[in-house]
């Protein structure tokens, strides 16, 4: 599959997540704070509460856990790093510049983390790309999703057209021992006089997970080709025309 570069890439968010087998001590994050703030000036702790309910016999038992994750961001909020108890997430919101810039930032941040945590077993690598196809629709006409995407629900003729849909499918990517989760949905468009369809793909690897930095980078390059191929399979030429329109402003 050839590389595609669009004038207006439809990517709204790109995410790389690494999950660990064992939790990272909070003191590590405190040490990292200073170094990371050179790259991400804004820090926001995110506190989450989890409630578990288990039934033992006829009696429910609840346990509550409290976690703090750390969300670092660039001043324009487009580059994000999240340090969690069991994971690190590098995220890029639009505008998405390039795979090279995104992954080099991931490598930098991951290397910095590894310096302070040492080797930790990695249990999962996830790469997620969320795309949005914005379709001009001034007259509020029905948009036929099959003209723009190849992933949509199939319904009996007498039950069409649909106002909204959301579908999810999951399939094994046997060649790379990963799992692809594919979402597609019609969402309220952020643009006036437009309709929008999201195509969201998540490639997750939990089998034979690469452990060294080099192997992770090599794997990510494979995922790059795969996710591009998946995306191109999910869209039509009509959608591609939209991504190649010149910016007016």
């Amino acid at each position, binding site marked *: 599959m050839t590389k595609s570069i669009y004038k207006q890439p439809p990517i709204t968010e790109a995410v790389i997540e690494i999950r660990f087998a064992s939790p990272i001590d909070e003191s590590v994050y405190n040490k990292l704070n200073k170094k990371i703030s050179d790259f991400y000036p804004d820090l926001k702790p995110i506190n989450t509460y989890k409630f578990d309910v288990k039934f033992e016999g006829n009696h429910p038992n609840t346990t509550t856990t409290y976690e703090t994750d750390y969300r670092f961001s660039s*001043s324009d909020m487009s580059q994000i790093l999240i340090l969690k108890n069991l994971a690190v997430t590098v*995220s890029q919101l639009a505008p998405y510049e390039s795979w090279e810039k995104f992954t080099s930032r991931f490598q930098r941040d991951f290397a910095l983390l590894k310096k302070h945590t040492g080797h930790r077993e990695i249990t999962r690598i996830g790469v997620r790309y969320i795309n949005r196809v914005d379709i001009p629709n001034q007259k509020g006409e029905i948009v036929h999703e099959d003209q723009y995407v190849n992933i949509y629900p199939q319904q009996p003729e007498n039950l069409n057209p649909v106002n909204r849909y959301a579908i999810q499918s*999951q399939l094994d990517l046997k060649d790379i021992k990963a799992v692809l989760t594919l979402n597609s949905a019609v969402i309220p468009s952020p643009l006036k006089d437009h309709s929008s369809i999201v195509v969201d793909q998540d490639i997750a690897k939990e089998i034979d997970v690469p452990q060294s930095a080099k192997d992770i980078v090599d794997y990510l390059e494979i995922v790059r080709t795969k996710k591009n191929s998946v995306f191109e399979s999910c869209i039509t030429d009509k959608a591609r025309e939209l991504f190649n329109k010149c910016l007016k402003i």
Partner: protein
Amino acid sequence: MSKDLVSAYTNSFHAKYAEMQLPSLLGSDIFNKSINSLYNDNLQISESFSRTLNHINDLKIKTESYSLVPDFNDVSNRTTKEILFDACANVKILTSKVSMHLNSEFRNNLFIQIDRVHEPKSWNQDDEPVNQLSFNSFLRWYLLNTPEQGPGIGLSPLGNLVAAWMVGRDRLIIEFLPKDKTKWLISRYYNDEKERGSGQTSISRLSAVLSPYNVDTFFKEKD
């Protein structure tokens, strides 16, 4: 089927269900009916049902990012600086949703202006920071009309974004309200006589409403 049997079955499923940490979607009545149709002679959950539940659980496990769902809405116990930071962060994240349609120079300039009007040192505590819904109206208008010349940005005491253009003595001021509404004001000099118009309209209608005033002079990029 005896009551004891159903009860035992229900407890067994709930125990396994809780382990999977799935949200409870099934009412117990519905569940009992499905058990009746699915359970095998060994009085365990059927394999096919168990597989279905496992698949549902697998689908839930996705690569996660908090960046999609910022939670900055709780203002209790926050300092002014934090409230202002969150307001600015929210609108920047809002902007990211349409950044692929924006010129980077405009975007960068917009953020600089937004940050400047939210300077904590000079903030009036009686005022509201930028309202997300107002900002959203501004973005949607901007993408609809794509003016070459960017506006100066101000804020109303209630947090509505104000966009202003001035050419010579002529001025155009638009206050963006939530839900794609605007208040507009235009002053133009014709043969040294000032003419002023004002009104309220939607962002879709604004262009038509302002057309008699030849607003292109404001929106064309200055040399």
